[in-house]
């Protein structure tokens, strides 16, 4: 390869094959900051899965109890818009909410949005909650990390809720709350799972809640969870899904509450196009220079061996 470089000097194909990383990364910043500073109005088309998701969500009543399986910080980065928009709908409908988790940081994400009832810290939706008089204990309860223990835990929750759950995350007994009358899966109107639904939790909730008790099961999915969840939708186990940040933006549009999803549409579009452009440029460089250089080197090395 050295010979070729010395022979040719500057080579456009070589430059395309080996773009300096600092320029690649600089473009990421330019796209992100540029999209935020100079937003373009992008019309949005609502996908089929978002429509399905919204059709079930919009039917919630104030007497309904929703099971909320939280997202980790990692997945929250992707599902943030759908996470906030969904909770917004639940609060506006006045439906009861029960949050539970299988990873430690899921509770912090939930409290970042809904506020922390123990410390009184505000969350992203605190003003809406105050406006709608949506309160901890009366309207929503945080059970903490009760989804540990694998499949047996989900079976216990679905069939023996009162036998398995005795208090909320802070140790306050659930007697006297709206959870007092919850005996099992049949008492839940809906399950909303944020994050990778096709993971272990998705299967367990699907088997023991959606299949056994026909509980409406919705997913707010990160990118890699979209394709696996589609198979669950076709079998009727999952009723609707938000497809990553884009799905969240679509939901924000449907409920008329612009948020982080719609704000990120420009970055999402330009980010995708940038990535595609890099693959194309890199491959032009590969066929124009890199492959030839490799072949030349192989021939030379082969000749030396002989």
């Amino acid at each position, binding site marked *: 390869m050295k010979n070729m470089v010395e022979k040719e000097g500057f080579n456009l194909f070589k430059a395309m094959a080996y773009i300096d990383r600092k320029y690649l990364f600089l473009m990421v910043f330019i796209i992100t900051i540029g999209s935020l500073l100079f937003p373009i109005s992008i019309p949005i088309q609502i996908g089929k899965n978002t429509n399905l998701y919204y059709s079930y969500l919009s039917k919630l009543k104030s007497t309904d109890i929703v099971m909320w399986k939280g997202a980790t910080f990692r997945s929250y980065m992707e599902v943030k818009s759908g996470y906030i928009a969904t909770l917004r709908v639940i609060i506006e409908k006045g439906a009861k909410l029960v949050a539970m988790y299988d990873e430690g*940081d899921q509770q912090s994400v939930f409290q970042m949005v809904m506020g922390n009832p123990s410390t009184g810290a505000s969350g992203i939706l605190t003003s809406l909650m105050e406006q709608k008089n949506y309160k901890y204990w009366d309207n929503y309860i945080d059970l903490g990390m009760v989804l540990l223990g694998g499949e047996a*835990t989900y079976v216990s929750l679905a*069939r023996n809720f009162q036998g398995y759950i005795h208090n909320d995350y802070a140790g306050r007994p659930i007697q006297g709350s709206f959870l007092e009358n919850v005996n099992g899966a049949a008492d839940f109107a809906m399950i909303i799972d944020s994050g990778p639904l096709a993971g272990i939790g998705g299967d367990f909730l699907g088997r023991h809640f959606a299949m056994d008790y026909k509980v409406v099961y919705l997913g707010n999915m990160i990118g890699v969870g979209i394709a696996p969840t589609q198979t669950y939708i076709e079998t009727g186990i999952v009723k609707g899904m938000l497809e990553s940040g884009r799905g969240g933006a679509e939901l924000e549009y449907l409920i008329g509450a612009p948020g982080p999803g719609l704000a990120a549409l420009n970055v999402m*579009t330009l980010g*995708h196009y940038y*990535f595609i452009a*890099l693959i194309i440029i*890199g491959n032009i460089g*590969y066929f124009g220079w890199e492959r030839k250089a490799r072949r030349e080197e192989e021939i030379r090395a082969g000749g030396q061996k002989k």
Partner: protein
Amino acid sequence: MSSLFRRKDIMITIVAFCFGLVIVPYFFDIKELNTYANNLSKIVAVVTTSAFVISLYAQSRRNLIMVRQRSKGWPYQGFQLIIVFLIAAVGLILGQASLPYKWPIEAIQMSGSTVFYSIATFYMISAGARAFRARNTKALLFLLSAVLVMLAQAPMTELYMSWPATIRAFLGDTFGKTATRIFAIGLAISGIVLGVRTLLGKEPATLGLQG
């Protein structure tokens, strides 16, 4: 007495009994049986959750050995050990809802986890420009599929071109779903096979016996 419960036939009988206790209520609604099955599920859930103590012991032992031997990266292992027990102690003394318990999660884990996820962007960008090469037909097909799916996934595309969405739907409905279903069906069949083999006594490791 303990030797009795170590006998293979006794263990298989217990497994078969528990299996029947859990599986029968799925098909027959017998109140008393339901109560026993629910209690058994609860016991299993609690035991499984409590198993974290074993992992904590194994991890702590490993870290201690590394610190004692001054192996490569031992300060990190020591730091991890201190943090784990410090947070556990704070949680036990002040409670899980307390601010000192929540602080490391919200101030350190949250930002660290977010950064960790975000830097994937830079790896992806670098890989897109320098590693994703159509070196053979398989790689070419993979890259074409990736480009078309991403093109369809970009929110603006659908407004001007409908064909990328059609191709994305085709790829997802055929190859994507097939792979997912194969994986799911494979898992289910493996589970059934393992269960049957355990009941037949052909999986001694599952029962904690030597093979």
